[in-house]
Each structure stands twice: as C-alpha cells, then as structure tokens.
C-alpha cells in the first residue's frame, strides 16, 4: 500500500487571548482562554502555553494540564517561578499562544470499579477534569486531596460538586492531619482503581500502595519540558523496561507500572521542597 496522499489539516500555534483570570487565593489562578478552533482536549491532556507579550524571555512555553476543555478551556496555575508568576498577573484580553491538546489522556475509567482520585496540590487540575467528565455517567469518584496547609488545596470546594472529597493537610489545618497515602491505604480493594497527579514522591508512594494491593493505577507525569511534542527529549522519565520515556508523548497519563519509580526517586527524589505534600 502506498502512502496516503490525503492532506490532513496541519496544526499550528493557536493565537488566542485570555478571557479571564480568577485568583483563588494563595498564589493559585484559574485562566480561561478563548479557543474556538482548537480540537477539544480530553481529560489528562495538556497544552503548551505562553503569552505573546513575553517576547524572548521567558523563552519557552509552559506545559499545563487542562482543568476543563471545550471552546473555552481553562488551566490551573500555581505561581512558583517566572513563567507562572506572569501567568498569575495576566489580564483579560492579553494575547496568548497555545499548542494543544498534547499527550495522552487518562485511560477510560472501568465501569465496574469505583474511581479513587489522589491529588497533591495543583495536581488536582487533570483529576477534576476527569471527575467532571464522569458526572454524566452517574459516577461520583472519591477524591483524596492532600496539601501542606488548608491554603494549598485549590478548588476543593469546586471538587465537592463532582466528587466525594477527603482532605489531608501536613499541619492538620483542614481534614485529616498527615499524608494522603494514609487515607488511600484504607480504601484500596478489588472494587476500585486509582488515578493520581501530584509531586513525584507522592505519586511513587501511591503507585507502590496500588502495586501491593493489585489495584490499577494511572499517573500523570510531570517533568521540565521545552517542546511538548517529542523532539527536545528534555522530559525523560525512567521507564520500567529500562531507558527512558518522555512525559510529553508517552504520557503525561500512563499506567504507574510503566514508570521505574526507584530510578525516578533517585533522580527527582530530592528532599521535598516546602509546600509539596508528601
């Protein structure tokens, strides 16, 4: 068979603008964009985003998981560096460049299992997108949501609309005092499956609990990324089969078994910075 001669429409950076930015306290923001031409993202996919006004510094777009899709997709931003600080200052109408949707979506939930979502801080975004997509099916997943303090749990009220929410904080200022994995351990059985997004150390701990309990576990990978579509090879994640996979094209959503968590821990597992749930 010869190569198809059909010319598929080519993708390019979407030139769009910010519709609105909602500040939701303690350096979290929800940014909503006008993206009528964009192919609708699926829960778990991400976009590369930067403002046209950045010029050549910051140079690179930022990878961000979608918080919601459709013609006005939104993103959850935590201010932690130069790029996110600018996103946190952006005003409605500011021109933006988006490349997306990129990467893999969450695996379709098993209708015969209860979904448990395990989120750490800003990792809530792709999980909340998944939870909202389940609402139409009558499913109400359990969300185990961990943060350092009660101010590090963005969108927890919003999540209560689509999930049964249980919260943990390191300082006990809200919900269970301790780690989110302590709650997870009590809920694992052969009727559930787990989806998780958060700091690597948290995801590694979640993955290990799931392996031990023979519970299916999906993770959303995060790594520094320059391109988002598989050419810079910056976002290497140690693969269980040896070598590396790339968070942008093999992921971000992938079964936890595909990741070599021991090597991931060796390379990414520096002491958790303040504010990271562990």
């Amino acid at each position, binding site marked *: 068979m010869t190569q198809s001669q059909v010319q*598929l429409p080519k993708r390019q*950076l979407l030139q769009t603008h910010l519709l609105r930015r909602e500040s939701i306290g303690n350096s979290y923001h929800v940014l909503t964009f006008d993206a009528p031409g964009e192919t609708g993202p699926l829960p778990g996919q991400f976009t590369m985003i930067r403002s046209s006004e950045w010029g050549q510094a910051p*140079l*690179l777009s930022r990878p961000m998981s979608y918080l919601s899709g459709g013609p006005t997709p939104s993103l959850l931003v935590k201010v932690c560096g130069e790029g996110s600080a600018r996103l946190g200052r952006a005003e409605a109408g500011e021109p933006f460049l988006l490349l997306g949707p990129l990467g893999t979506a969450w695996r379709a939930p098993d209708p015969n299992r209860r979904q448990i979502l395990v989120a750490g801080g800003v990792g809530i975004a792709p999980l909340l997108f998944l939870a909202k997509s389940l609402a139409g099916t009558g499913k109400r997943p359990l969300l185990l949501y961990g943060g350092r303090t009660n101010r590090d749990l963005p969108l927890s009220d919003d999540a209560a609309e689509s999930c049964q929410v249980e919260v943990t904080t390191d300082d006990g200022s809200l919900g269970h005092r301790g780690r989110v994995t302590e709650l997870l351990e009590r809920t694992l059985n052969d009727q559930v499956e787990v989806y998780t997004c958060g700091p690597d150390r948290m995801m590694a701990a979640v993955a290990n609990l799931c392996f031990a309990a023979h519970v299916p576990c999906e993770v959303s990978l995060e790594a520094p990324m320059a391109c988002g579509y598989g050419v*810079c090879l910056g976002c290497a994640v140690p693969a269980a089969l040896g070598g590396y996979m790339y968070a942008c094209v093999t992921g971000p959503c992938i079964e936890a078994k595909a990741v070599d968590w021991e090597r991931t821990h*060796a390379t990414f597992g520096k002491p958790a910075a303040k504010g990271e749930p562990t």
Partner: protein
Amino acid sequence: MTSQSVRIGSLVLKNPVLTASGCFGYGLEFDDFFDVSTLGGICTKGLSLKPRDGNAPHRICETPAGMLNAIGLANVGVEAFCRDKLPILRERGVTVVANIFASSVDDFVALAERLDGESGVHAIELNISCPNVTHGGIEFGRDAKMAAQVTAAVRAATKMPVWVKMSPEAGDLVGVARACEDAGADAITAINTIRGMVIDVANMRPKLANATGGLSGPALRPIAVRMVWELAGAIKIPIVGIGGITDTRDALEFLLAGASAVQVGTASFRDPCSAQTIMHGIREFCEERGCDVTELIGKARR
C-alpha cells in the same frame, strides 16, 4: 521571482533554512505541523553506532532568553534510523543531513561508511562539539589536530558532502575550522551550544543531573553571529550559521555575516513551524528588495 536556492559545496539546497540537529527529531515528528520537504533541509538528531538512552533527568532548564540542555545524545542508533526513518524521509523528498556522533575516529568512520550511499542522505554533519557526553564530542572540536584527523578520516570514508559542526569553546575557532577545511570538509556549521550551569538555590544542587548543559537560544546569538563573521573572513568553504535564530530578522543577520545557510534550533521548541515561517520570511525579504538570497550572503562584510 527571486531565487532562494543556495549551494553548500556540491549540494544545492532549495532555500537556506535548515533545522538544527537535536531540535527536530528525525523530521517525522513534524507531520502534524507542516511539510518539512519544503525546507532547505533537516539535520537529524545526532546518530551513534548503537542506540543511546541519554542522560538521567533533569535534562533541561530555562535561562534568561535561552535554555540549558544535557540530553546526552539520546538517539535510535544509525541502523534504526536507516531502517525506520530514512525511507519515509526519502519518499517525501526531504533533504536530509545526517548528524553523527562517536567517541573515536574509528567509530566516526564506521558511521560515515554505514551512511555512504544511503539514498536519501544528502550530507553528513560531524558533531565534534557536543558538550554533554563524557568522551568524544567536544574533545575533538577543541583541538585543530584532532578535528582535522576526524574530518580527514570521514572524508576518506564517504563520497557525501561532509559538514563539521564547530564548538564555540574551541580556543582557536578559526584555526580549528581551517584545519577542517584543509582536511576536506565541504562546509562548517557554526556554532554548537556553549556550556553553562544553573544551581537550584532552594535545593542547593545543580538544576541539571549532568551539572552542566549546553546553552542555546537567543542569549547565544550575538556570540554566534560574531563567530560566523570571523569564520567568513578566514575560510573559503561555505558556513552554515546557527545559534539562537528565532525569526526572519535573526536568520538574515547570519546570512549577512557570511553564512550561506542557517539552522533553526531551539525556536522549533517554541513553535514547531518556526523554520517554515523563517523560510517564508527570507523569501519575502528578498522579494521586497528584488534580490536573490545569494546576494545577501556576506553582504554586511562588503
């Protein structure tokens, strides 16, 4: 109508815009974005005899108007390239410059022999300037004698045009380039990244697992333009200019400094269609001035 074609030794390119090695995969990753056969050419990810996994993460970090990378030449290996990638590139009519990397002269020769006569490969680019591997790479590029030795050995092993990619860390850049010219190189690519470093102050550790990485992006551009300028005054073979080109204006700087063609690198990470946009931009620039692109080459020198 203006002519956009340029000559790099015996190789005629459709236009002066290529994509840089390490920033464009094997070209096939861009199917969704544009027809890469319209470009002057693509330089493949650096190919080694055996596949390489690359360095441990973290591999990249952003810097002011630039980025550091220490990918470690992760690649599929020359056999998988010839078997899985090249046939598709050939069928699509893509002009392919195979970038090769080895840690010994013998392995450079073996790579050149393997690629010699492979239909679809139009030139070989020697990476003697990678800053991110323990052996080979930059060691060859810093020293005129070693650079000449690799170039001569590869020259003898292939009939294909041989380009040599310079390290900005060569103490005597002109000397290294002249040695490569004398050893039979058809063109000089200038420049590769320059080593830099960022320390994560919160963790008190280098940001990159490799500690150092190659600096690319606009921050590098004035250095690259200066080096192309110096080389253009010193060697007779064509220069392929590279270093922080993000738009048409940047690319024109390199041509005016004396480069016969340019490579677009880090800019492809920001916008997969960067090289195509620059290619169109140069054509428009020439049309506005009613000149052929070759008239721009080295014009700032005259």
